[in-house]
């Protein structure tokens, strides 16, 4: 039964690829419209060094963005967790910022950071996208405290700092992990969007390879880049899922 569940997606992918390959060949679809899977595979192998290097750059920028977002979001959430007044001050601002479509900010960030250092603009925008899930996860988590445990801390005379360290921060761990998992996926999206917007090849990431291939009507190469992007996103998600499961198992002891 387990083997069947492992095999099922592989069988489905094989079937789709086979149908794609035969129909493209039988109908004589031009390669610039829809290349056959075999052509995509050739493009992948032919351009492997370039595509992999670009994928590495995109991944590197997304991870750097994730680190920046994590540091800033957690620090800010902690500061607000200590002061309810600060939180009231910041909350409406955060809501407006979050509701603004990030893509529309991209040209601005490009002007500020990207003219001389395109990778900084990419990291900045990806960090902005990754910021909110981590921030709202941490803020929610710091408040998701068992009210009876809170009473207990009050009963034993715990101060604000002791309550934060011994109660609210550990309570927030599952929420913070969940926020990072979502943010990891979004950071890749942010990196790709930023590179699209900057339009120059300065950052040399996968998104630029996509644009470059599109402009030259190298559709098979576009597909190859898209597949790498998809695999990268899936791998990032799986890595953070694994990390989350591992930490939570230690956190609650099973």
């Amino acid at each position, binding site marked *: 039964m387990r083997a069947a569940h492992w095999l099922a997606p592989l069988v489905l992918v094989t079937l789709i690829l086979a149908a794609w390959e035969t129909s493209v060949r039988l109908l004589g679809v031009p390669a610039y419209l829809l290349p056959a899977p075999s052509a995509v595979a050739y493009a992948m192998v032919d351009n492997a060094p370039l595509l992999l290097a670009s994928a590495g750059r995109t991944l590197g920028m997304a991870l750097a963005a994730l680190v920046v977002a994590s540091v800033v979001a957690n620090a800010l959430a902690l500061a607000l967790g200590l002061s309810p007044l600060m939180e009231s001050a910041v909350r409406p601002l955060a809501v407006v910022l979050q509701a603004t479509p990030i893509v529309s900010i991209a040209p601005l960030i490009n002007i500020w950071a990207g003219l001389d250092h395109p990778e900084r603009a990419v990291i900045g925008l990806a960090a902005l996208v990754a910021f909110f899930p981590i921030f709202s996860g941490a803020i929610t988590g710091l408040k998701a405290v*068992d009210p*009876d*445990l809170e*009473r*207990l*801390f*009050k*009963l*034993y*005379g*715990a101060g604000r700092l*002791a309550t934060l360290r*011994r*109660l609210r921060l*550990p309570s927030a*761990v599952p929420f913070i992990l969940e926020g990072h998992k979502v943010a990891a996926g979004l950071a890749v999206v942010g990196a790709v969007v930023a590179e699209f917007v900057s339009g120059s090849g300065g950052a040399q990431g996968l998104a630029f390879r996509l644009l470059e291939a599109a402009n030259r009507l190298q559709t098979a190469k576009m597909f190859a880049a898209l597949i790498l992007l998809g695999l990268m996103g899936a791998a990032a998600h799986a890595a953070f899922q694994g990390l989350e499961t591992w930490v939570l198992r230690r*956190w*609650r*002891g*099973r």
Partner: protein
Amino acid sequence: MIETVAALHAVQVDYAGRGRALGPFSLALERGEIVALVGPSGCGKSTALRLLADLEQPTCGEVERTAGRGETSVVFQAPTLMPWASALENVALPLRLAGQADAVLSAGQALARVGLIGAEQAKPAQLSGGMAMRASLARALVTEPRLLLLDEPFAALDEITRRALADDIHAIWASSRPAIVFVTHNVEEAVYMAGRVVVMTPGPGRLAFETRIEAPLPRPPQFRTSPLFREQVERVSAALQQAMAA
């Protein structure tokens, strides 16, 4: 001369939007006494407990407390343990918050007192419901409280575990004699646990009936089948029924 550990003098608690939750209600706790508060759900029993713990302030009336900080302990309906911390760390918490150096040593002793030797490193999720409640009790005892407040501590446990824990609480009481307030809506449990049973009216709760259970504490074996126990259970039940009908 009877020494009072804590008392509520004609206290009233009003919640904005929900109206009055409790009172006017008075209750005086003598040193080393076990009092059971019985009443229907929503009658303000838990509110009365939080007033005694100084976790809430009355809208009017007065709360008198001679037990200082760290001398009052509360056990809630759920074990209320920190899921990320071991049983030992959970029990050590009150001492750590008070900055005591030998917190872990005392916590180990408290765990032993409630029969949880060997479970020190277990996380709450690895404990059974009864074991988690024992850990919660150990945490309440670790500060050697003069006032122990139990808010329906057995509500989520099966009958066998409830009975074992009831006797354990009596044994603990016999060794350090804290004043205990025990909130429940189970009449038999109230009569078994307490030297004095106080029945409250439906919310806002007031005093409906009060009786002393003139039998030794801890309870002798077979106390539940004795005529005195049956008779008191009937009296308290009747009083509760009358209070709810009124």
